């Protein structure tokens, strides 16, 4: 106890001195620029001929833009869900929306639609996300609280997972199977500006919706009754969170596949740096998520440029040990 007393003001003092949002924005911008400049075709593309221009506009720019958008969507949605459920272990996948998007995309590959039109793959993902969000909404009911929402999300998530496995199981040929599996692993390779145009408006709209929940999430620190007393409409808040997550995470998953752990880890790491305030955590987590995805993607290109290792695998490899560390830390805090 006495240690904690000494500790608290120092931590808060640090949070006050460092303009955390500025630092995060700078890191995200650096990662974005690095993502534009680093690749197997050479670092920097100075001056550049036609080939260099094509590589920049057709490959690197879409990839960097998508990395930033997808990371921001995952980080922001994770922060909102952790605040709403008041549980530091919540993450965007919990609502079943990314599961629905994955199922939709896999079905698009399975039916051959994705082979016929490139746009069918992300479109399938978007439809899957929308269906999952509506199912969760219906299942949770009109006036339910967080617990029912989690249960509904878990149910829809398992169902989508089971159907995805079924689609893999019934795969028409080995090539389709490999394509579905690789897509599920999550990646930013071979995406075009079409993907950006498709996902960007939805992610921005969903993100804007999620950013408006900050004050309500702050009030929820005191519990649901006190939050209601402070003017929070709990039903409207819940609907805004489902819609915002469906738009942003649904679109992110539809274009990049399932990328795990970003939405869990990023808010967690940043929370102490913004004084634990849910409202201040939202923009910070969006920037942090973008920075993390872009950095992981650049690292992948630098250290394993020709391998088939997918971004989702890298984030999981970083995320799982973090999870273990979290468990050990919680055990230490709760232990004797």
């Amino acid at each position, binding site marked *: 106890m006495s240690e904690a007393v000494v500790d*608290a003001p120092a931590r808060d003092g640090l949070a006050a001195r460092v303009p955390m949002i500025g630092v995060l924005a700078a890191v995200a911008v650096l990662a974005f620029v690095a993502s534009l400049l680093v690749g197997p075709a050479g670092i920097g593309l100075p001056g550049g001929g036609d080939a260099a221009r094509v590589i920049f506009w057709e490959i690197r720019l879409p990839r960097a833009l998508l990395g930033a958008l997808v990371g921001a969507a995952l980080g922001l949605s994770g922060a909102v869900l952790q605040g709403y459920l008041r549980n530091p272990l919540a993450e965007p996948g919990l609502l079943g929306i990314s599961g629905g998007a994955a199922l939709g995309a896999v079905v698009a590959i399975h039916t051959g639609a994705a082979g016929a039109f490139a746009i069918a793959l992300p479109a399938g993902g978007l439809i899957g996300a929308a269906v999952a969000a509506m199912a969760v909404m219906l299942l949770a009911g009109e006036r339910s609280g967080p617990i029912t929402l989690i249960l509904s999300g878990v149910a829809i998530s398992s169902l989508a997972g089971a159907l995805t496995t079924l689609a893999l199981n019934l795969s028409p040929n080995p090539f389709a199977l490999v394509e579905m599996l690789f897509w599920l692993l999550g990646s930013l390779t071979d995406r075009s500006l079409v993907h950006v145009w498709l996902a960007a408006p939805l992610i921005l709209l969903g993100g804007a919706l999620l950013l408006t929940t900050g004050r309500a999430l702050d*009030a929820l620190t*005191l*519990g649901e009754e006190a939050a209601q007393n402070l003017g929070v409409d709990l039903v409207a808040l819940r609907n805004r969170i489902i819609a915002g997550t469906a738009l942003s995470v649904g679109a992110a998953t539809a274009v990049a596949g399932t990328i795990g752990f970003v939405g869990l880890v990023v808010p967690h790491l940043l*929370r102490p740096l913004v004084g*634990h*305030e849910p409202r201040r955590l939202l923009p910070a987590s969006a920037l942090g998520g973008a920075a993390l995805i872009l950095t992981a993607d650049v690292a992948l290109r630098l250290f394993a440029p020709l391998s088939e290792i997918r971004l989702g695998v890298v984030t999981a490899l970083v995320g799982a040990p973090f999870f273990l560390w979290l468990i050990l830390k919680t055990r230490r805090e709760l232990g004797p």
Partner: protein
Amino acid sequence: MTGAIPGAMTETLHARGVGVRLGGRRVLDKVDLSVEPGEIVAVIGANGAGKSTLLRAMAGLIAPAEGAVTLGECALADLDVRARGRAIAYLPQERTVHWPLTVRRLVGLGRLPHRARVAAPSVDDRDAVEEAMDAMDVTAIAERAVTELSGGERARVLLARALAQRPRFLVADEPTTGLDPAHGLTLFAQFVRMATQGRAVIVALHDLSLAARYCHRALLLKDGATLALGTARAVLTPRHLAQAYGVRATVTEIEGRPVVLPIEPLP
């Protein structure tokens, strides 16, 4: 801004024939209670008598199945939620704080109903927070994380949040539970101060001596219905206490202050 608030003297918080059902069970039945500005009203009764439910209804957090709660002429259900938050502060019995915010930030949450969506805290907001922290004696721990405080300190911080709302009505559910005697008295001294400013306090209590000493009126509930309503002295009688709590009690005076002393449970 420390004096009476404009309009504070005109509006009464009325519960009229309020009935509440939870999961099919009737937990409150035809309860009437009108609270005038400037008074402190105790809501008392045994565990499960419906005190918390009545308080929630009077704060507008649950809609009664029968009857209505009105603020002046306006039904709480029709009032904008933020306007309601400016008029009525509700202090739940539950004292869980989910994130380790600093005391100052937590008390600042009480200003949310007063603040425009994107505006920074105004001078009024800052004043209200400092004044509330001062009143509850938590200024010295303003920069500590709420989750690191003792139970009593946390109770005072949470009440400071409700005071920072500068409400016309404070609805407090067993605010003295877990407070040491000195801070319990400080808290009621604060309620008295609020009453003299033209605000009103509705407080659910188990400490009947505090109710007898500080509350102008008392509502005694039994099984969701009104058993007695009147001045604290008229309600807190051995006969009522036997009926409501099943306890033999003595009501006396020590140093000129009323004391309610439960002696033994009745057979």
